[in-house]
């Protein structure tokens, strides 16, 4: 089903059944904005899998999904799209197939390649929002530089153990260099990535995307929401 059908209904003030439970929160205009939006999700692992699932259900019209990795056994504990059936399948391709099962109105562009400096501009241009669902710090810093250069909002998250952080980087604000010294990996190399932590961070990221696209509420721009569920810590930090 083409998303044009839902947009036609929404234009007439009618509510497509699949979005009925969205409308009380974001309204008809909000749903239209989501359906007309283009979002790039960079990484389709622990964070990305949940983000893609939620944005497809919410009705974001176009998702570009970028990941050069394939699913492995070690992903099964936390990555929503990793199943015994998808072992060895490229993550971006697998994610696009999942979106087609959930919401065939959503157009996807699966890019089975690693994000890098050479493909960054081509993959990110003309996006309304970019989502950082990567798992290395160097790649995140590159993604942030490119998003700011292209003047596109970036929704960042990272996790390790019971801990996670989420923030929105705007073109003119502070970037991820505020959060990281130059290094490739963080404390996840020690603490690992348990099942619930990426889902928690990814849900907040998906909500950030909805707020950015609809103009509703307050985003986490210039801020970092840091959580540590081991000690029930949820802190909103100011990146200056």
């Amino acid at each position: 089903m083409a998303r044009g059908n839902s947009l036609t209904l929404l234009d007439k003030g009618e509510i497509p059944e699949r979005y009925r439970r969205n409308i009380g929160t974001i309204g008809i205009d909000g749903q239209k904005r989501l359906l007309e939006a283009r979002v790039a999700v960079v990484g389709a692992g622990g964070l990305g899998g949940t983000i893609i699932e939620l944005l497809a259900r919410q009705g974001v019209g176009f998702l570009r999904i970028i990941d050069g990795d394939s699913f492995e056994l070690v992903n099964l504990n936390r990555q929503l799209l990793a199943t015994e059936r998808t072992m060895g399948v490229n993550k971006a391709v697998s994610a696009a197939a999942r979106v087609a099962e959930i919401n065939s109105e959503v157009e996807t562009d699966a890019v089975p390649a690693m994000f890098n400096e050479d493909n960054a501009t081509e993959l990110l241009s003309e996006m309304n929002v970019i989502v950082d669902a990567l798992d290395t710090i160097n790649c995140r810093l590159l993604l942030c530089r490119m998003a700011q250069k292209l003047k596109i909002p970036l929704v960042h998250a990272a996790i390790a153990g019971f801990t996670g952080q989420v923030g929105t980087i705007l073109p003119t604000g502070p970037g991820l260099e505020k959060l990281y010294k130059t290094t490739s990996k963080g404390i996840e190399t020690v603490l690992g990535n348990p099942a619930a932590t990426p889902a928690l961070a990814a849900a907040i990221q998906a909500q950030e995307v909805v707020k950015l696209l609809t103009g509703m509420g307050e985003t986490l721009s210039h801020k970092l929401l840091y959580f540590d569920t081991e000690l029930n810590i949820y802190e909103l930090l100011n990146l200056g």
Partner: protein
Amino acid sequence: MRVEVRLYATLRRYALSVADGVLNVDVPEGSKASDVIASVGVNADEVHIVMVNGVSSPPDQALAEGDRLGLFPPVGGG
């Protein structure tokens, strides 16, 4: 002067005597964040984010009586 030092995630291992990673330390007037990091025995290389009273700050930020210093290691997983 007295400042509160709050250690997050893996940095809490530097303060095993307190379960929540919160230390109240006496430091000389004019101490910088980096001085306090050294005084509590935290390896500065592991500190990627320094927050003073909830605001991102450079390590050479001068502290005042009662300031809250938050120290965060890098979180990079996805």
